[in-house]
């Protein structure tokens, strides 16, 4: 809201503080002041009126009331005395309200106006406040809107057909040419102000060409009305027509304001355009807005604000805000809320009023005591943090990508993805069902600058399920390196990561090929699929782990294992086995046969190709035997080794290589 400092001052006998100071006072007690600008003998304040206060503070009067309440100043508003001429308004005009969304319609008629430019000080004032001066009648309407907050409209009386004003819903496809020459096609949800034949204005938003004030205008009809804020807001948005009037009506104006505004407008038109006021006012006002009542327990002030405000001070503040004390006991007050404060509905609203005027700076800082501690740890958060730390140790850098994908990724990876109805751009049309597409993109971008790239992301992925859209946490990463065996490195890193998270039984199984992975392994934890890893692009290897599954298998238990002082003995076994037998199975069986004496087990060679039967692979293991009790002799170890080979061959079809 653009506020003229001199205009504000005109409401007071005593001068207000200097503009800078006043702006700061308003910022701390009412609304933030965004800027102060010096303009032609005046300062213009740019005040960010809070959305719940548009009803009374989109006006100089409203802001002046704030100043009066904060600074405890008396306002000086001269009463308006209109000299009414002959003729009765009902002989000039009829008003019919057919739409309940028109809460009140007040009108006056002024004859013999002389349309011309406004006085210079008026034109200057309007210009300072960002409005273009037009003519003395239109300017007067705008002037009163800025002064009191009530949007007003003037029609050329002679152009009104049937001498009747009707507030009604528009007919389907009814059209209207607006003051700016734009044509609008309306629907039946839109409210119009019409005469007997056509729409003259879109109610509460903008006037039309049909009854526009022109240089020839002699008699004017002044409209001062009040409309349902919701209806005005919806229409303004639908027509994409935000005006000074609609902005005010949207914020729930006080219907009781129409009268004062109409009197003020008439007074100014008589003054600036020499008109004669026709006797009487038309005022269609079915359901009168009455002052609300709020009962305030005085203890609520202290309880909520955390400071004791003297009762007399609280009551003085309420009075300064125009709130009447209807009755008072030691514990509570019954308040009457002026109708211009439609935002005050519950006791907490009053707490805010008293608090802000009293001054929030007077409230001390108090730390609440802790009742329950230590605070329970969030396990998910803990293991997320741990995973990130482990990956960081493994040289991975964390990235954050958008949750969105475009058509390009969707098509490239043949993804099923939920659509966003109002995407920000075509690159952000879908919710990501996987973190991998953007990670691959990150890798490719970064390879322009870096020899090798290792990145990870932990974030939500989304997928549709009947009527629902679900989300879950995924941990994904990717690696691209000039070094060979990047994949095996990655595989080792995944095992390391999972072990660090306390995951026991980790296995890999051959996964499916799809548009994301040209070759892949499933990561299996305790028999449950927890994710997959594989090649996603040339020399780019990625993994994804479902964090919900992971969380079922993580842990922090560790137990010290005795360190034996007896010498270890290493044996190698090599043999061939069917391709589909997993290394994990082989290891499992070796341990089975090891009588608890196996302290280390490592695969050191896997080979498939010429020399090995088709569908088979050759595998070699290092086995370290060690006892906690004694030095193992060769005989014992030979025996165990034979036992192991026997189990392998019987259960997995192992053929020992001689």
């Amino acid at each position, binding site marked *: 809201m653009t506020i003229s400092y001199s205009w504000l001052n005109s409401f007071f006998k005593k001068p207000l503080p200097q503009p800078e100071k006043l702006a700061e006072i308003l910022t701390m007690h009412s609304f933030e002041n965004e800027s102060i600008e010096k303009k032609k003998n005046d300062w213009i304040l740019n005040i960010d009126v809070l959305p719940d206060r548009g009803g009374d503070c989109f006006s100089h009067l409203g802001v002046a009331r704030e100043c009066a309440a904060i600074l405890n100043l008396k306002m000086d508003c001269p009463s308006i005395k209109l000299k009414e001429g002959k003729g009765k308004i009902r002989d000039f005009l009829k008003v019919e309200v057919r739409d309940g969304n028109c809460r009140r319609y007040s009108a006056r008629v002024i004859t013999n106006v002389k349309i011309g430019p406004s006085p210079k000080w008026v034109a200057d004032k309007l210009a300072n406040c960002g409005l273009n001066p037009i003519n003395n009648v239109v300017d007067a309407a705008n002037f009163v809107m800025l002064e009191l907050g009530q949007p007003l409209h003037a029609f050329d009386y002679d152009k009104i057909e049937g001498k009747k004003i009707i507030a009604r819903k528009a007919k389907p496809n009814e059209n209207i040419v607006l003051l700016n020459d734009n044509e609008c096609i309306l629907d039946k949800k839109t409210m119009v102000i019409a005469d007997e034949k056509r729409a003259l204005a879109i109610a509460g938003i903008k006037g039309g060409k049909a009854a526009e004030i022109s240089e020839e205008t002699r008699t004017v009809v002044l409209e001062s009305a009040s409309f349902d804020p919701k209806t005005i807001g919806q229409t303004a948005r639908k027509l994409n027509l935000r005006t000074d009037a609609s902005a005010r009506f949207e914020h729930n104006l006080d219907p009781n304001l129409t009268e004062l505004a109409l009197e003020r407008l008439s007074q100014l038109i008589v003054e600036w355009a020499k008109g004669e006021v026709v006797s009487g006012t038309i005022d269609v006002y079915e359901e009168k807005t009455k002052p609300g009542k709020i009962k305030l327990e005085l203890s609520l002030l202290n309880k909520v604000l955390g400071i004791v405000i003297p009762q007399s001070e609280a009551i003085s503040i309420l009075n300064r805000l125009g709130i009447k004390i209807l009755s008072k006991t030691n514990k509570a007050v019954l308040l009457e809320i002026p109708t211009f404060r439609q935002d005050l509905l519950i006791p907490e609203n009053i707490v805010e009023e008293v608090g802000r005027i009293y001054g929030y700076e007077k409230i001390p800082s108090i730390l609440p005591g802790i009742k329950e501690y230590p605070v329970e740890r969030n396990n998910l958060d803990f293991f997320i943090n741990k995973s990130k730390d482990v990956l960081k140790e493994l040289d991975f*850098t964390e990235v954050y990508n958008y949750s969105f994908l475009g058509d390009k990724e969707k098509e490239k990876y043949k993804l099923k993805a939920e659509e966003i109805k109002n995407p920000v751009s075509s690159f952000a049309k879908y919710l990501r069902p996987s973190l991998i597409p953007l990670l691959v993109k990150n890798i490719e971008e970064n390879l322009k600058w870096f020899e090798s790239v290792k990145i990870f992301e932990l974030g939500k992925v989304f997928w549709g399920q009947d009527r629902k859209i679900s989300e879950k946490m995924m941990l994904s990463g990717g690696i691209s390196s000039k070094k060979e065996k990047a994949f095996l490195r990655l595989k080792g890193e995944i095992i390391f990561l999972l072990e660090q998270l306390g995951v026991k039984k980790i296995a890999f199984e051959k996964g499916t090929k799809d548009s994301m992975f040209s070759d892949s392994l499933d990561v299996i934890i305790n028999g449950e699929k927890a994710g997959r890893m594989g090649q996603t692009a040339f020399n780019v290897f990625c993994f994804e782990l479902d964090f919900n599954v992971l969380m079922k298998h993580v842990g922090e238990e560790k137990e010290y294992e005795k360190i034996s002082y007896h010498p270890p003995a290493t044996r190698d076994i090599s043999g061939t086995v069917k391709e589909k037998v997993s290394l994990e199975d082989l290891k499992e069986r070796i341990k089975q046969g090891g009588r608890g004496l196996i302290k280390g087990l490592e695969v050191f060679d896997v080979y498939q190709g010429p020399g090995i039967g088709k569908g088979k692979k050759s595998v070699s293991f290092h086995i370290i035997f060690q006892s906690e009790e004694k030095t193992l002799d060769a005989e014992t170890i030979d025996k165990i080794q034979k036992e192991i080979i026997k189990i392998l061959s019987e259960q997995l079809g192992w053929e020992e290589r001689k």
Partner: protein
Amino acid sequence: MDIDSLKETMERELGEIKNSKELRDFSNKYLGKKGEIRKIFAEIKDLAVEEKKTMGREINEFVAELEKKIEELREVLQHGTAEAEKVNLNLPGEKIESGHLHPLTTVRREIEEIFRLMGFAVVEGFEIEDEWHNFDSLNIPEGHPARDALSLGKTLYLRNKLLLRSHTSPAQTRYMKKLGAPLRIVIPGRVYRYERTDASHETNFYQIEGLMVDENVSVAELKGVLERFLQEFFKKKVAIRLRPSYFPFTEPSFEIDMSCAVCSGAGCPACKRTGWVEILGAGMVHPRVIKNGGLDPEKWNGFAFGMSIDRLTMMKYKINDIRWFHSGNLKFLKQF
């Protein structure tokens, strides 16, 4: 055997030794099991007793002397070797590569830790929300200007009236229902807005929501908690001030400024010379929201606040453009 000439030879050879190996060879040649000294002892075996005695003593003394010299030389040679291989401590250290955490992760952890120490548990909300939790539960009903401002222009919608949460606040009523009161939680997470992106606006960003519900919670406590948080986070004494604001889900509502961390309130470009920086929005939970959380507003009240993790991160590291966070650019990420 001429002992004197042997002595002379040995002295000379000893003087010519240049490294440990030569010394070892020398030592073996003369003092070894089959060395010259042994040979001499073997030779004098047949001499007369008296002569044998004299010769023996002489040789033993010489050998002791020689061993001492060898030991000294070994010391010198070893020292000398160390000298030759000595590291130049002034050369640059090796470049160490390691991974990096995203700055938003680091800052989020710091924030969580401070609140945890003040008794606030860390919980998560959903990123996909329904209209009731994102708006209605927070006292932003259909037709409310704030609803329109937030929903039409700013919210990203999915099918079946689902949406991407436009703030972390919907978790307020969810957790009131789930955990009851008294309650102290922070809810960090990703939120979504329909925005034209620029240096300070993003479509994906991060908020942390705080909620404390108890009997007799006051603005003074809200002030205390936030002031302490900011002091811990910026690691310096900061002042805060509360300005009137409006949020449908809090009453009273505040905009909270902190004294500028750069100039300590003196006024500088970072705070537009005001000495204050707007840092978060907060307020006392609206009774209707308490009720929507399944609690009795006559008994329970509370405060709530929400702040941008991105903004705190940008302030902490002096990052000038919010878009870096989702750039995936390692030149940026490897700085943290």
